[in-house]
């Protein structure tokens, strides 16, 4: 019943193409993370604003991002919006979907981090004449980002892995998409996807290691 002959050479011959795909995967993930962090800060400010409308927007975003499949979010960013005549490329849709997911999760992480920072920190800043926004920007936010650093690393890893969902919206230039196309050509399914898995694994390990080094440099207090 088990008479499959492994042909690793065929898979390894495609390695350069897959590595090109890995670069695209990293680009999308990094970009989605950068925009996601910025959006999560904005969502956090919305929640702190005291405005019902703004905090309602932020809460809805977080709820949808955290309680629906990432696949649904990416699908919506492509086929969902297409129903309204908005057409994004697969690359853009994938970026939007992952960014939406990142921002939601990170905003929730930030909320938890804020609870660990005493109110007196902002108060001390206000008493020195800093405005509310300045106290957030220079006193609260740096501490919030530091506390959230580990969850942010996890989200970055998750963003890398989420790029694999891009195939559902026709993405074929990222690592998973490239692998999928190669599979259709060669049918070396196991070998190709095993190589892709190893590349995914290495990318995420490097991210975790890099994050640890970065943390050691950035947070000396």
């Amino acid at each position, binding site marked *: 019943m088990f008479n499959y002959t492994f042909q690793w050479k065929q898979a390894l011959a495609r390695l350069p193409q897959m590595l090109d795909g890995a670069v695209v995967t990293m680009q999308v993930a990094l970009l989605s993370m950068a925009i996601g962090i910025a959006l999560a800060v904005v969502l956090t400010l919305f929640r702190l604003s005291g405005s019902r409308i703004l905090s309602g927007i932020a809460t809805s975003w977080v709820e949808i991002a955290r309680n629906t499949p990432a696949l649904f979010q990416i699908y919506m960013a492509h086929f969902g919006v297409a129903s309204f005549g908005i057409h994004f490329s697969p690359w853009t849709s994938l970026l939007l979907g992952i960014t939406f997911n990142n921002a939601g999760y990170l905003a929730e992480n930030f909320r938890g981090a804020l609870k660990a920072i*005493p109110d*007196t*920190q902002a*108060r*001390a*800043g*206000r*008493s*020195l*004449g*800093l*405005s509310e926004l*300045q106290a957030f920007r*220079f*006193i609260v936010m*740096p*501490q919030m980002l*530091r506390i959230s650093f580990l969850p942010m690393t996890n989200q970055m890893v998750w963003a890398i892995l989420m790029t694999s969902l891009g195939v559902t919206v026709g993405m074929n230039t990222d690592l998973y998409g490239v692998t999928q196309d190669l599979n259709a050509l060669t049918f070396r399914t196991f070998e190709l996807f095993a190589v892709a898995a190893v590349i995914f694994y290495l990318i995420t390990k490097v991210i975790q290691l890099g994050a640890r080094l970065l943390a050691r440099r950035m*947070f*000396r*207090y």
Partner: protein
Amino acid sequence: MIEIQNVRKSFGALEVLKGIDLTVQNGEVLTIIGGSGSGKSTLLTCINGLEPIDSGRILVDGTEVHARSTDLNELRQKIGIVFQQWNAFPHLTVLENVMLAPRKVKGMSKPEAEAMAVKQLEHVGLGDKLSVYPSRLSGGQQQRMAIARALAMSPKYMLFDEVTSALDPMLVGEVLDTLRLLASEGMTMICVTHEMKFAREVSDRVAFFHQGVMAEIAPPAELFGAPKSPDLQKFLAATA
């Protein structure tokens, strides 16, 4: 000049300030003593507008603190406040802690702010701790850093809210010495304190707060030497 006129303030059903009238002249050192919950600390946070008041007025150099038209961020530059919990900013070095407000609020250039910060840190005896993070400092050092941080804004008035209460007894002295230094330099100060010896020594006047009322106010020799109200007599007997 700080003028406090018939100020009332409640937290829910609890009235913590029941009509306070008090004027602090420039150059004066006023200490406020009294039991917990007597409203002393609340009054300080009202003076720089961190807390709203229910009625009455507080005027700082003629500007009404709680008027809608008052720019509190600007007014607060004149009024330094140091709290019982020193609230060091943990992510910034000692120097950066002190430089932050001069740079961001006053818009000082970096060298200018740094010169100011170094000057104030040396003033409070922390000239050798500039590049250290606050977590490496003792409580007394952190509290002195908080004082330098407030002084770096060149305030006209300084409010001290039980600044030695959270300190190890061994560290109280160094912080009080810093306050004495400021007083001797002519800074206008309001100090809420439990340090009776300090109050007696440095104050021009001492006010005794009891249950939201300023029960007595007098020069220290008079207030400590001949307390009039039974409440103050009881308080002094208990703290002696």
